[in-house]
């Protein structure tokens, strides 16, 4: 059976868990690094089987050859705060390990417009290399756009009640990690200094918090965290319905193509 290499931002942890919760006959291997704690906890809670693999052994992945093999490589949060660093990291990861697999799926979007040519740049690998796209074939902008399902819905949600008003969007994973994200995105050195954070939000015109419900409930405190966030920064709460459509479709699409290419057919 073919093997798929998923290179993903940690922010898609929940979407990945959702995929593997639904999957059968798939051998999941997680590349050991400092970004796997959250996903391991969630997989364990759901009794989803996986194995861990050391980065230096990525070319020797074990597994049942009867199963579709997925090697998941999670990268740290907020690399998009420095787009060139994000590009270097994603490209280096693929350059180092892509050759050992039959397909590569990158769980990132344009992320500051640095990953738009990823598919062309790795065409020489002669395997399917894909980045997250919406149903129209457009590369998604970022993880929020992914949750909205397409650019139009995202754009619509961005418009505040009044001009110049911004909305700070929180998916369940964004909400669970908002303090860490503020520091990584260089907004503030101290995520508990609400006054300083509020100054930054005010300056940037943020007046609302957008709760984007993807329908995933692996993060148990989503609702409470969004409420807390709204209260701390005196934001109006706006509710949006998101989904896992994009991540699901991109995963199943590459899997189907890889199985077909290898002469296997998905049951």
């Amino acid at each position, binding site marked *: 059976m073919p093997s798929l290499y998923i290179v993903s931002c940690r922010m898609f942890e929940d979407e990945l868990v959702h995929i593997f919760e639904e999957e059968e006959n798939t051998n999941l291997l997680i590349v050991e690094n400092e970004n796997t704690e959250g996903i391991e906890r969630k997989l364990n809670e759901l009794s989803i089987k996986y194995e861990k693999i050391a980065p230096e052994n990525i070319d020797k992945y074990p597994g049942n050859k009867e199963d579709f093999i997925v090697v998941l490589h999670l990268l740290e949060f907020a690399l998009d705060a420095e787009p060139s660093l994000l590009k270097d990291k994603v490209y280096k990861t693929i350059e180092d390990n892509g050759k050992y697999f039959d397909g590569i799926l990158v769980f990132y979007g*344009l992320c500051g*417009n640095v990953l738009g040519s990823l598919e062309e740049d790795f065409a020489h690998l002669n395997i399917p290399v894909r980045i997250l796209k919406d149903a129209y074939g457009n590369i998604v*902008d970022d993880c929020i*756009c992914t949750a909205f399902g397409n650019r139009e819905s995202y*754009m619509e949600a961005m418009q505040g009640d009044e001009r*110049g008003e*911004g909305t700070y969007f929180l998916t369940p994973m964004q909400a669970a990690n908002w303090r860490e994200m503020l520091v990584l995105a*260089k*907004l503030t050195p101290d995520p508990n200094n609400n006054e300083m954070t509020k100054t930054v939000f005010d300056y940037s*015109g943020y007046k609302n918090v957008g709760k984007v419900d993807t329908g995933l409930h692996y993060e148990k405190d989503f609702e409470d965290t969004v409420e807390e966030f709204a209260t701390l920064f005196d934001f109006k709460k706006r509710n949006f319905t998101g989904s896992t459509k994009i991540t699901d479709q991109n995963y199943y699409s590459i899997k189907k193509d890889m199985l077909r290419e290898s002469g296997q057919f998905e049951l």
Partner: protein
Amino acid sequence: MTSEDEILGQLYKSFIENNEEGVHRAIDKWFERGYEEKQLLFKLIEAQEEVARRFEENECFLATLINSTTILQKSNKLITEKMANKGFASKNKATVVIGTVKNDTHDLGKNIAACRLQIAGFKVVDLGRDLPTSEIVDATINNKADILAVSSMTSITMDNLKEIVDLLKEKGYRENVKIMVSGAPVTKEYADRIGADAYVRTASEAVETAENFISQKC
């Protein structure tokens, strides 16, 4: 008596430390002693560039850059008022219309650029942020702008930059105005592709590019 260098040193240090009062004290002293304002403005720019460098190189956080931008804007206003009181009327090099595109409220870079262009002697019409394409284009035409500076900080709003260039063409004003585009996801390739005249990454580059536009025109 406080020497010029001492006051400039105070100004620089206070600015870096986000000490607004200290900066204004230094400006007051400078004018009390009747020194020439050019040196003061140079020092202010030098200090602003140092804060921007520290932010780029992860030595400080956004909050510091925001505070320094507010201090820069207020200081520039104070200096302009003091110069006006002394009877100096600034001669504008050219008119720059500046703003951020629709749905983009991130205007920190735009604010720094607007202030720096003003200090460099341009007449700046700052439209603000989250501006519909038609509003930017109409303001460009109505103000007879020589230069239009527009930014988009997100890839999702970036297509508005192309819309602006296209609408200026449609309204027959494209040949009259030089367009510079900026923002985190914007690149030189993108600027070339949409038919803008320049891509700028920083406020310093915006000033340098504006100066180049004007010298080309002369």
